[in-house]
C-alpha cells in the first residue's frame, strides 16, 4: 500500500486524546475504500492471479471438450476449478498484506494517518478485485457451457460457493500476511490445503478417504459419483456449505482485523471483533453439523431412479424406435436417434419388434478396483449412503449379464449411459450405440453369459467374462457394416478400433483372432467379433453402399440366420472372402483360458 497524499489531506489530527484513538475515529470508510481500490487493482495485475485465472479458463475448456455437460456436475466442477484462482489469490493477498512488515516499514506506515485497522480493511477490500474477475470467469463459463447443449440447469447456490472460495482465499491470505509476513507462509498454506484438496478431488483412489460427509468440512470436494447419476445428488449441501464457507471467510476477515485491533488496544473494536468471531463460530458449527447430514429421502429417491429406470424414465417413439431417457435428458434423444436411424435406415426390411434404447446408470458407478478387494471410491465418498451404493452396485453389475433385467427393454438390450460424448469422443459413443443396435437386429447378444475365475499360471489367477462369438457367420459382418455406416463419425471410429489389434480368443478347442472390449467411453456392452468378420466388413465398407444394400435385400431374413456364412455373403457381394487371420500371441497364449461358445 502506498501513502496516497489524498488520504493524508482528508484526516485532521485532534488536539486532545491519544494519536491512535484519534486516528481510528477520524479515518473514514472513504480512506479504506480508496486504499482498497488501489490494492484491488494491484491484485488484479498480479501475475499469480492472472495465471490462476488463465489456468482456470483453460481447465474449463479442456474438461468440457469431450462430453455433453451436465449442470449438476459442472456447477460443482466450476467450484473445483476456481480453487486454482483461490490459491493464487491467497498467495498474492499474503504477499500484499505482509509487504510493510517484510520491508521493515511498519514505523513509517504508523506515522501515516491511516491506521493499521484501516490498512487491513483495505487489503481485505482488495480481494474484491480478483473476486470480480472470478465472477466474470464464472459468467463466461456458464455462457460457454450453455452453448454446448447441457443437461439440467446450474444451481446459483453452488456457483456462489465457488466464488466464496476465492473470497476465502483472499481472507486467509490477508490474515496470514498480517500475522506471518514471510512470503513462504502463503505458499506453504496453499501447498498444505492443496494437498488436502487434491486428495478430495482425485476421481479414484485418493490416498486418504474421509468418512461420510466430513469431506465437506474442507473448503471443497467433488463427489466422484456425480457424473454417473441421473440427477443432482443430495450429497452436496448447497445452503449449509454456502453458510460454512461464509463463516470461514468471515473468520479469516476477523483474524486479519484482530491483529490490528490488538495492536492498537482499541477496546471497542476488540469487543466487536470477539462478538463477530463468536457469531461466525456459531454459524460454522451449525453449517458443519448440517452438511454432515445429507437428505436421506432424496438419496433414496435417486437410488430408486438408478435401480428402476423403467419406472423413472420418459419414453419417446421416433421412427418406430422407442427412446427412454431420465427426466432432463430429452436433448440426448435426438443424439441417439441420429445413430439408430443410421443403422435402421439401411435395413432392407424393418424388424417386427420395436427397438427400445434405454438410458441407465452403468458399471462406472462402481470401479473395477472393487475386484481387488478395495472399497469403491464411489461408495467411499458416498458416506452414509453406503447401503444405497451397494444396492445400485448390485443392479449395475446385473446389467452386464442379465438381458431381462429391465422390463420393457429390448432383448438383447440396447443401453446408453448417463454421459454422451462431444467433440473427439462423440464417434466412440456413436459407434458403441450403433453396434448395439446392429447386434440387436442380427440377434447377437449384448450381455455377458457368465463371469468365471480361472488360473492363468502357477502364480496367477484372473477373472473372465464369457460371451459367444459368431465365428464364420454372415450376420456378424453385416452388423459391423451397419454400425460402421450409421453416421459419418462411426466409420473412422470403427477403423480406429481395429487398429488397436485383435486378441486371441478360445472357441471350443481352437484359438482364433477376435476383437473385444468395445470402448473406453460410455456404456460397455458385451460386443465381441472375429477378425475375419471385421475383415469382411472392412471390404464391404469399400464397396458402393447400393451394391451391399442390394445384395442384402436379396433374401434378407436369410442373412440373419446363424447358418448363413461369411463365404456365402462374400459370394453374394462378388468379392473374395478375406483369409482367416491367425491369433496373436503364439506360445504366450494362456492355455488355462476358458472357451467362448459359438453364437447360436
Amino acid at each position, binding site marked *: 500500500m502506498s501513502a496516497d497524499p489524498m488520504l493524508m489531506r482528508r484526516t485532521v489530527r485532534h488536539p486532545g486524546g491519544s494519536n491512535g484513538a484519534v486516528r481510528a475515529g477520524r479515518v473514514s470508510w472513504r480512506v479504506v475504500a480508496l486504499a482498497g481500490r488501489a490494492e484491488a487493482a494491484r491484485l488484479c495485475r498480479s501475475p499469480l492471479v492472472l495465471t490462476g485465472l488463465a489456468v482456470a479458463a483453460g481447465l474449463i475448456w479442456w474438461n468440457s471438450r469431450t462430453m455433453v455437460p451436465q449442470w449438476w456436475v459442472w456447477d460443482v466442477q466450476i467450484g473445483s476449478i476456481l480453487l486454482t484462482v483461490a490459491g493464487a489469490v491467497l498467495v498474492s493477498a499474503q504477499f500484499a498484506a505482509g509487504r510493510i512488515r517484510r520491508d521493515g516499514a511498519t514505523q513509517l506506515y504508523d506515522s501515516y494517518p491511516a491506521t493499521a485497522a484501516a490498512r487491513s480493511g483495505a487489503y481485505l477490500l482488495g480481494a474484491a478485485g480478483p473476486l470480480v474477475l472470478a465472477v466474470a470467469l464464472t459468467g463466461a463459463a456458464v455462457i460457454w457451457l450453455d452453448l454446448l447443449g447441457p443437461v439440467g440447469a446450474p444451481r446459483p447456490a453452488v456457483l456462489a460457493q465457488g466464488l466464496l472460495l476465492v473470497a476465502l482465499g483472499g481472507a486467509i491470505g490477508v490474515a496470514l500476511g498480517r500475522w506471518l509476513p514471510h512470503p513462504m507462509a502463503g505458499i506453504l498454506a496453499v501447498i498444505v490445503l492443496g494437498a488436502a484438496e487434491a486428495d478430495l478431488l482425485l476421481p479414484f483412489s485418493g490416498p486418504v478417504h474421509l468418512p461420510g460427509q466430513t469431506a465437506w468440512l474442507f473448503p471443497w470436494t467433488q463427489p466422484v459419483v456425480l457424473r454417473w447419476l441421473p440427477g443432482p445428488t443430495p450429497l452436496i449441501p448447497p445452503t449449509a456449505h454456502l453458510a460454512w464457507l461464509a463463516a470461514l471467510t468471515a473468520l479469516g476477515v476477523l483474524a486479519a482485523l484482530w491483529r490490528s485491533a490488538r495492536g492498537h488496544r482499541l477496546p471497542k473494536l476488540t469487543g466487536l471483533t470477539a462478538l463477530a468471531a463468536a457469531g461466525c463460530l456459531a454459524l460454522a458449527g451449525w453449517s458443519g453439523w448440517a452438511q454432515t447430514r445429507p437428505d436421506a429421502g432424496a438419496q433414496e429417491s435417486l437410488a430408486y431412479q438408478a435401480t428402476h429406470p423403467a419406472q423413472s424414465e420418459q419414453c419417446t417413439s421416433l421412427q418406430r424406435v422407442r427412446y427412454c431417457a431420465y427426466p432432463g435428458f430429452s436433448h440426448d434423444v435426438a443424439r441417439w436417434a441420429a445413430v439408430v436411424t443410421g443403422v435402421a435406415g439401411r435395413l432392407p426390411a424393418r424388424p417386427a419388434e420395436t427397438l427400445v434404447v434405454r438410458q441407465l446408470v452403468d458399471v462406472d458407478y462402481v470401479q473395477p478396483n472393487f475386484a481387488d478387494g478395495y472399497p469403491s471410491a464411489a461408495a467411499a465418498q458416498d458416506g452414509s449412503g453406503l447401503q444405497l451404493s451397494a444396492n445400485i452396485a448390485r443392479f449395475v453389475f446385473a446389467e452386464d449379464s442379465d438381458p431381462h433385467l429391465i422390463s420393457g427393454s429390448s432383448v438383447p438390450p440396447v443401453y446408453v449411459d448417463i454421459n454422451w460424448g462431444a467433440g473427439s469422443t462423440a464417434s466412440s459413443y456413436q459407434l458403441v450405440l450403433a453396434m448395439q443396435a446392429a447386434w440387436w437386429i442380427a440377434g447377437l447378444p449384448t450381455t455377458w453369459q457368465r463371469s468365471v475365475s480361472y488360473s492363468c499360471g502357477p502364480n496367477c489367477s*484372473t477373472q473372465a467374462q464369457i460371451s459367444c462369438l459368431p465365428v464364420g457367420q454372415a450376420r456378424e459382418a453385416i452388423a459391423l457394416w451397419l454400425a460402421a455406416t450409421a453416421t459419418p463419425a462411426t466409420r473412422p471410429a470403427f477403423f480406429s478400433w481395429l487398429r488397436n489389434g485383435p486378441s486371441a480368443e478360445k472357441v471350443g478347442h481352437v484359438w482364433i483372432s477376435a476383437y473385444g472390449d468395445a470402448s473406453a467411453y460410455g456404456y460397455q456392452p458385451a460386443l465381441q467379433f472375429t477378425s475375419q468378420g471385421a475383415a469382411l466388413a472392412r471390404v464391404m465398407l469399400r464397396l458402393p453402399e447400393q451394391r451391399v444394400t442390394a445384395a442384402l435385400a436379396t433374401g434378407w431374413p436369410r442373412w440373419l440366420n446363424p447358418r448363413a456364412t461369411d463365404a456365402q455373403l462374400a459370394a453374394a457381394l462378388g468379392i473374395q472372402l478375406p483369409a482367416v487371420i491367425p491369433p496373436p500371441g503364439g506360445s504366450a497364449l494362456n492355455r488355462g483360458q476358458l472357451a467362448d461358445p459359438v453364437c447360436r
Partner: protein
Amino acid sequence: MSAPRHGRPGTLRFAAAAPHLARTMPWGALLAGCIAGLGVSLVAHQFSNQPQQPANIALIARAAFVPLVVAIAFVASVSQRDLIAALPAPAWLTNAAHLTFALPALGLTAWLQLDLAAADLQLTQGPGNRGKAFSGGRTSISAAVPHLPWLSLIAELIAWLAFATGAAAVVSRTRWAELAGAIGAPSALAFVGALALTPLELFPGDFTGLSLAQRVAWLRSDWSWCALGLAAIVITCWACRDPWRRLTRRLARPLARRARSAPTGT
C-alpha cells in the same frame, strides 16, 4: 561478516565465514518446509486407507517433496545479496554455505519421508495382502517382495531441489531479488508440473510386478532426472557468481602495470 583475506585456502575462508553465514541462514523457512513435508508424509501414513496401491505411495512421496522444494528456494535466495557482493568474499560463498547448512536437514527429512513410504509399502505387502499385485482388474500372485525405488525417488528429489535453487538464484540477479524464493518456488513447481505433461514419462508410478518395459521406463526417468538436475545445478552455479568482475591479484597486476606506464599528463 569479516572480510577473509585473498589467498587463503577456500576451506579456511569458509570456516572463517561460517559462523556469520549461519546467522544469515533462513532457518525458519527451512524448518517450516521440512516440518510441512514430514507432516504430509505422516498424515498420509496415519490416515490413508491400507493397503495402499504402490502408485499412491509414489504419489504421496512426491507430494511430500513439494514443501522441501519451497524451503530450498527460500534458502537459496539471499536477502543481503547486494551487501554481500560489495564484500571481499565471493558472492557464491553465501549461497554455498546456506545450501551446505540446509543439506543435513533436507536429507534427514527426505530419509524419514521415504522410510514412511517404505513402511506403507510393507503394510501393503503384509500377511493379509502379501503377493497381491495391482494391475487393472487382474489379481496376480508374485513371489518377489517389492522395494521402494529409493534411488529413483532421491534422484527425482535432487533434481526438483536443483530446479528450485536455480530458479531462486536466477531471480536473485534481477530487480525482484527480495522475492527470489517466492518467485523461485512456484516457478520450479510449475516447471515440474510442466514436465509431467511432456511425453518424457518422468513420473513412473507402479513399482511392483514390473515388466521389462516398465523397468526401462524407471531407468530412463532416472537418467532424465539426473540430466535435468545437472543442468539446473549448472544454472545455479552460473547465477551465484559475482554480479561484476572481481578485482583479483592476477587481474590487478597488469592493470597496475598499465597504470604505471601510462603518462600522467602533468
